[in-house]
């Protein structure tokens, strides 16, 4: 049971060591990876027996102390963290970075592990603030003015979101008398008048949504993710955004959020994909795509059935893998050619290393959900988990949009010679690419077999292939004839107003649900 305390705290210790013992940075990296692997392995074994474990720090009962809980969700995200950590550290192996960078990296990983196990609303607030600050500093690491501005915008909006969240915590504490999620759940069943839940949950959801990459709330995301360095983008897009989703998962287990999450999910999915289709700058396109993919996860959480929740986990895991791979590969492609635009990258594809292009291809296949790659598994489970036709249509639309936006990358993949890529970077691509290809067997570790039996059928394969085929065929005409989209909302002032409007949207959705 000590593991769930050790995982975050050891990373913090490593972070401090990174800074004070500068020559041993690489040794610390290897040690951290090893220890993470061992601890997660032990945790897997324990959870396989017990289902979930909890610990109350200091041994004080959960009504006064802080409780930490580990379950299947935290395990899945823990493994995702491990994969991304390994890949990113390998990617950065040859680069000359200051120990400061590695310290921030370890702090980020520690905070991520802490979020996975957190079970207390205020504890979540503190961890999320640490996560905000660390990712803020990581985005601005290059000190270029556009990076600084993107990260400052991120800090402004995320901090505003956390202020709203804290107000929500105050409401919850005032009425429920506790901040422990489990105790709140029991309070909710005991109390007769639970009108306050309306305000509390809309405040909490709004605050977290700003960090979770949901379209109307996280308008800072495209700039921040596109202007950070590749490894940081991969971490932010693959991991940090997911932490918001993890918290939403925890909240959804207690508060009645399903209807509003479905609407928010559809909204962020469709708006995100529309923006992704019209963007030609590769990293911006990937960032918008992140916004849309969060839609899948929210729809899964909102649906709430067991299969859909498994689908959410599956897709979150898969998305972390392929979005991390895509950002890393896109980073090295842009580095090799000096071009950012997809069209220009295609013109200069001979300068991009073959391995980078292969990595981009695998990432693309993963994200468009070609069976049996990673994206397909999550989509299949999500599809099987929902009963309503509206949701299924939205899911199909999302798939179609993703294919359309990624079909433009296809000309990159002509088999011809390419530039040089260091071996460590190829290896780091491999770490992420392998699980994407072998995703289906991997899922058996955390998805029960009966869920697969109910969700896999031949019509699903056909539907998926039809969507992909249509997407590839229609990609060019759609992208060419798309109207110009308003980008004003991405500015700081407007984004703050939009967050506030988003609060009322959530509130009204909860009111009428």
């Amino acid at each position, binding site marked *: 049971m000590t593991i769930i305390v050790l995982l975050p705290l050891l990373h913090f210790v490593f972070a401090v060591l990174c800074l004070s013992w500068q020559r041993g940075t690489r040794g610390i990296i290897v040690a951290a990876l090893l220890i993470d692997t061992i601890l997660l392995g032990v945790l897997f074994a324990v959870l396989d027996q017990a289902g979930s474990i909890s610990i109350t720090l200091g041994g004080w009962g959960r009504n006064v102390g802080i409780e930490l809980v580990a379950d299947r969700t935290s395990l899945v995200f823990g493994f995702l963290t491990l994969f991304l950590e390994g890949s990113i550290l390998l990617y950065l192996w040859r680069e000359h970075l200051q120990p400061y960078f590695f310290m921030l990296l370890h702090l980020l990983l520690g905070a991520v592990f802490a979020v996975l196990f957190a079970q207390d609303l205020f504890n979540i607030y*503190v961890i999320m603030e640490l996560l905000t600050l660390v990712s803020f500093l990581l985005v601005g690491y290059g000190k270029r003015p556009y990076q600084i501005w993107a990260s400052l915008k991120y800090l*402004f909006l995320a901090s505003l979101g956390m*202020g709203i969240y804290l107000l929500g915590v*105050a409401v919850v504490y005032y009425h429920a008398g506790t901040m422990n999620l489990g105790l709140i759940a029991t309070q909710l069943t005991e109390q007769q008048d639970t009108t306050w839940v309306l305000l509390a949950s809309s405040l909490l959801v709004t605050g977290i949504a700003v960090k979770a990459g949901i379209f109307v709330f996280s308008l800072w995301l495209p700039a921040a993710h596109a202007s950070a360095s590749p490894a940081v983008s991969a971490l932010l897009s693959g991991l940090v955004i997911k932490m918001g989703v993890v918290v939403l998962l925890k909240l959804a287990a207690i508060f009645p959020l399903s209807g509003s999450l479905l609407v928010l999910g559809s909204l962020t999915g469709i708006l995100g994909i529309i923006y992704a289709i019209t963007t030609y700058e590769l990293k911006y396109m990937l960032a918008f795509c992140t916004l849309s993919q969060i839609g899948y996860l929210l729809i899964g959480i909102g649906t709430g059935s067991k299969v859909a929740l498994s689908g959410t986990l599956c897709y979150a895991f898969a998305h972390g893998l392929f979005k991390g791979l895509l950002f890393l590969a896109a980073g090295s492609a842009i580095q090799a050619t000096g071009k950012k635009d997809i069209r220009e990258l295609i013109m200069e594809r001979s300068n991009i290393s073959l391995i980078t292009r292969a990595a981009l291809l695998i990432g693309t296949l993963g994200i468009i959900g070609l069976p049996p790659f990673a994206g397909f598994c999550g989509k299949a489970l999500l599809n099987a988990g929902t009963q309503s036709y509206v949701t299924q249509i939205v899911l199909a639309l999302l798939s179609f949009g993703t294919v359309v936006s990624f079909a433009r990358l296809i000309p990159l993949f002509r088999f011809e010679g390419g530039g040089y890529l260091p071996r460590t970077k190829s290896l780091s691509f491999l770490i992420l690419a392998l699980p994407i290809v072998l995703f289906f067997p991997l899922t058996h570790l955390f998805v029960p077999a009966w869920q697969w039996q109910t969700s896999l059928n031949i019509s699903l394969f056909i539907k998926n292939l039809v969507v992909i085929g249509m997407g590839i065929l229609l990609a060019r005409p759609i992208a060419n004839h798309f109207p110009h989209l308003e980008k004003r909302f991405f500015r700081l002032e407007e984004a703050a107003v939009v967050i*506030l409007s988003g609060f009322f949207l959530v509130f009204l959705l909860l009111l009428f649900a």
Partner: protein
Amino acid sequence: MLMIAGVIVSVILFGIGLLGMIFRRDLIIKLLSLGLVNGSVMLCLVSLGSRANGIAPIIRGPENAGYVNPLPQALVLSAIVINFAILALALVFVMLLVEHYHSTDSQRIEHEIKREREL
């Protein structure tokens, strides 16, 4: 009564901070508004824990009554430090931006960055 007054004031402060964040174009003033937004939530928390004729939660004798709720105060202590960290770090970033763009006007900076991207 006292508690509700505190809550009302803190919510009004929250609104003032929000308006400042949205309408003041100056980044430093925006930052201070952000500080106000976070600070107002702390006032809300503390006043939720308060009570009329209460005693500060420092035990002086054996009797056990009349103390105000200590938990929100402990939470607010953390929140104040977090707020400070945000304000200090964001200030450094604003300074770096001013060094480059010679302006604290958010819209101008945004405009300049857009132009640089198009170049």
